[in-house]
């Protein structure tokens, strides 16, 4: 654990000494809650339709698959015409694409980023590495099953899948959201203990709060 995250005594500018425990003081540790859908069905349908047609992706490339997302922004594939956009901050993103292999070190960051996204949020696992480890099946540092650690809505198989496959994946994700089945965030909240147990089993130096708002 990093020294700045340790519990310690700090002397303030006015000379008063006080105790600081960063993980407890600076972060809110309340676990996530299940957020119900809108009460009226037609409103929820409208929201689901808007969510499906306006997918904002977190621009976080975890592995080699990140290179397959770049062509989607360019004239050849142009995902913007399907309402797909890239956002640089997890607060504004709805879709997290785990693009390829995920080392345990990146998994830590991916979990933090995922937890900072707003409900409802979706996860796509891109490439065979996220499904069963792919070519990294015997690696000492790469997770093999993404859905043990984050709730995955959709997998896109391949090594690597081409941008066309990604576009097809977006279309399938839209169908899932339209049908109201994109409830990964609530699933995460319901099985929070199980997910945390899996995450902590592979991340040895857990130096962050259990839930990052």
């Amino acid at each position: 654990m990093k020294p700045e995250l340790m519990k310690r005594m700090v002397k303030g500018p006015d000379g008063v000494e006080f105790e600081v425990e960063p993980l407890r003081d600076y972060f809110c540790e309340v676990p996530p809650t299940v957020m119900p859908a809108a009460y009226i069905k037609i409103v929820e349908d409208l929201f689901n339709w808007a969510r499906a047609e306006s997918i904002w992706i977190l621009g976080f490339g975890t592995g080699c698959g990140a290179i397959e997302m770049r062509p989607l922004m360019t004239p050849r594939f142009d995902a913007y015409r399907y309402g797909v956009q890239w956002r640089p901050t997890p607060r504004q993103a709805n879709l997290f694409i785990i693009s390829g292999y995920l080392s345990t070190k990146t998994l830590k960051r991916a979990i933090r980023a995922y937890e900072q996204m707003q409900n409802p949020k979706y996860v796509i696992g891109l490439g065979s590495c996220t499904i069963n480890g792919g070519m990294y099946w015997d690696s000492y540092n790469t997770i093999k099953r993404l859905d043990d650690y984050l709730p995955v809505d959709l997998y896109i198989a391949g090594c690597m899948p081409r941008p066309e496959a990604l576009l097809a994946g977006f279309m399938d994700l839209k169908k899932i959201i339209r049908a109201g089945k994109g409830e990964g965030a609530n699933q995460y909240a319901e099985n929070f203990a199980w997910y945390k147990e899996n995450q902590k089993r592979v991340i040895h130096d857990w130096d962050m709060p259990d839930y990052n708002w």
Partner: protein
Amino acid sequence: MTMRELYDRTKALFPLGELIEQRSGGNNDLVFVTVPAAHLRATILHLRDKEGFSHLVLLTAVDWLEEGQFQLTYLLNNRQQAYDLGLRVMISRDSATMESIHDVWPTAATYQRELREMFGIDFPGSPRIEEEFILEGWNDIPPYRRDFDTLKYAQEKFSERPGRKTHDPETHMRQQLYPDMSPTGK
């Protein structure tokens, strides 16, 4: 100046091993030489200051498990002449320690951090050598050592999805593309 001349000149000063020419024929511009660990620093300084090897291309290690040795390779480059010279240093595998050269080339410090984390070779005095380099919270023997069983570690640590199959690419593609052909390919 050829690499052979350079070798002869340097050999007069330092106890170098045999010259191994990696690219025989044509321009012979990549050679490897073994140096005793105690003479490495002097050799490197000589090559850098007198022979124009101004650039450290890489510093890496090989694990000779059976011989009980680590081989460190310092690959130097002479920009003017476009020559590469690899210095090989054999050190003992247990209590693996080597002199740091971060004051000769500051970039070496990064390589040395990596070697310490991945192979467990210590370089006393190198900056930030104690810090984690890329692995976070590693609690096993260094992963690039050959006695570390990667497969076993991965199977124990990461949960697996059942149903994974491995195909030999050659037989698999032959069956896919030419199913009528006999298995031997005749």
